[in-house]
């Protein structure tokens, strides 16, 4: 059961098509499992359609339709088929367990995806906390947008499971503990490097990027 949703302004920017690709991916992964937000996006899409109709229009060149018809003639006959939802993250990285995870701390590994999202400011990472493991206490200098991809974690805000979506700001101290049974994998966009705040933090900070 999805408990944590993106706020309405993010859903609006998604529907309007104004998000960077990594943000859109986080939203898409949430929407895949959240019928409530999907329903909201459907309605937002109809808001977009109505604004499109209410706004002005611009005259088209006289020969544009003929040019379009000409192109249609040359289209291959293959009909597009409805897609059964393919998980865009699995399509991008394949099997999560087979990734070359980089161990960062005892319970924490990361896999950096930033290169795949050149338009996305900040860092795009998959983070893995081993089942039942604690991640160190940390805060964020910027914001962190996170969607749970596998397993789950708890922190002072509650329980987060697959599909749950959370945006953490600078004031949030984050102390996640992975749920038992399965490693917890999250997809996150970090607008600035994570800062460790626990007693070990000062020691480890220089080594964490």
């Amino acid at each position, binding site marked *: 059961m999805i408990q944590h949703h993106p706020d*309405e*302004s993010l859903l*609006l*920017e*998604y*529907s*309007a*098509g*104004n998000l960077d*690709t990594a943000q*859109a*991916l986080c939203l*898409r992964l949430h929407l895949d499992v959240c*019928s*409530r937000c999907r*329903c*909201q996006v*459907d*309605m*937002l*899409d*109809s*808001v*977009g*359609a*109505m*604004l*499109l*109709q*209410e*706004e*002005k*229009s*611009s*005259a*088209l*060149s006289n020969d*544009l*339709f003929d*040019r*379009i*018809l000409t*192109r*249609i003639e040359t*289209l291959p006959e293959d*009909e*597009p*088929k*409805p*897609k*059964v*939802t*393919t998980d*865009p993250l699995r*399509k*991008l990285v394949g099997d999560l367990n087979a990734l070359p995870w980089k161990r960062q701390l005892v319970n924490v590994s990361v896999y950096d995806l930033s290169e*795949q*999202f*050149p*338009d996305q400011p900040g860092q795009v990472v998959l983070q893995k906390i081993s089942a039942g493991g604690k991640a160190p206490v940390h805060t964020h200098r910027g914001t962190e947008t996170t969607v749970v991809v596998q397993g789950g974690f708890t922190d002072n805000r509650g329980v987060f499971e697959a599909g749950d979506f959370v945006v953490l700001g600078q004031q949030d101290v984050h102390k996640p503990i992975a749920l038992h049974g399965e490693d917890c994998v999250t997809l996150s966009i970090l607008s600035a490097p994570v800062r460790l705040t626990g007693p070990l933090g000062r020691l480890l900070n220089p080594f964490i990027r």
Partner: protein
Amino acid sequence: MASARDTNARQEGCKDPWSKLLERVGQQRDREAYRSLYEHFGPQIKYYALSNGMAHHAEELVQEVMISVWRRACLYDWRKAAASTWIFTIARNQRIDMLRKMQRSSAEMAVETEDLWQIPGDNENEPVTALHRILAERRVRESLRSLPEEQVTVLAKVYMESKSHQMVADELQIPLGTVKSRVRLALNKLKVILRDQAV
């Protein structure tokens, strides 16, 4: 199952004229229907491109959208989205796709636009919700007309000019919080926010 048939008939009656035209394109490859759709939506899409700062590619966007409409029309399901909504999502995706391709070669596009922004009905597993959708859309349309100007302006800048809330705030010289509250008020009025409803 007389009652189910009645429901179907009632739902069929709700189908808007653009959806009927789109179905004719999809099922019969009807070029007259296609031309009517082009004449209605084409100028809107061109305006959409222009207001998005794509002056040099405005008709190119119209072309790409119309080609996509032709190719995908057989997948269109009126129960999942009104024709206008379906075409809006195609226009949005083509805009994003064109901008992404202008910025870099498509070979570098690790994730396809359509995997990030889906078109209604693309997902076969979606339940069919014709009446619910039609009623919700009607409500949205009616309440959009009664929104205060300042709220419509903010929504129009987000949708038609692809401006983030921050950019809207800068342009209108109002605080970000004001933009956000106008959005929230508008979406509440349109009943798009479902926070407290069971769905």
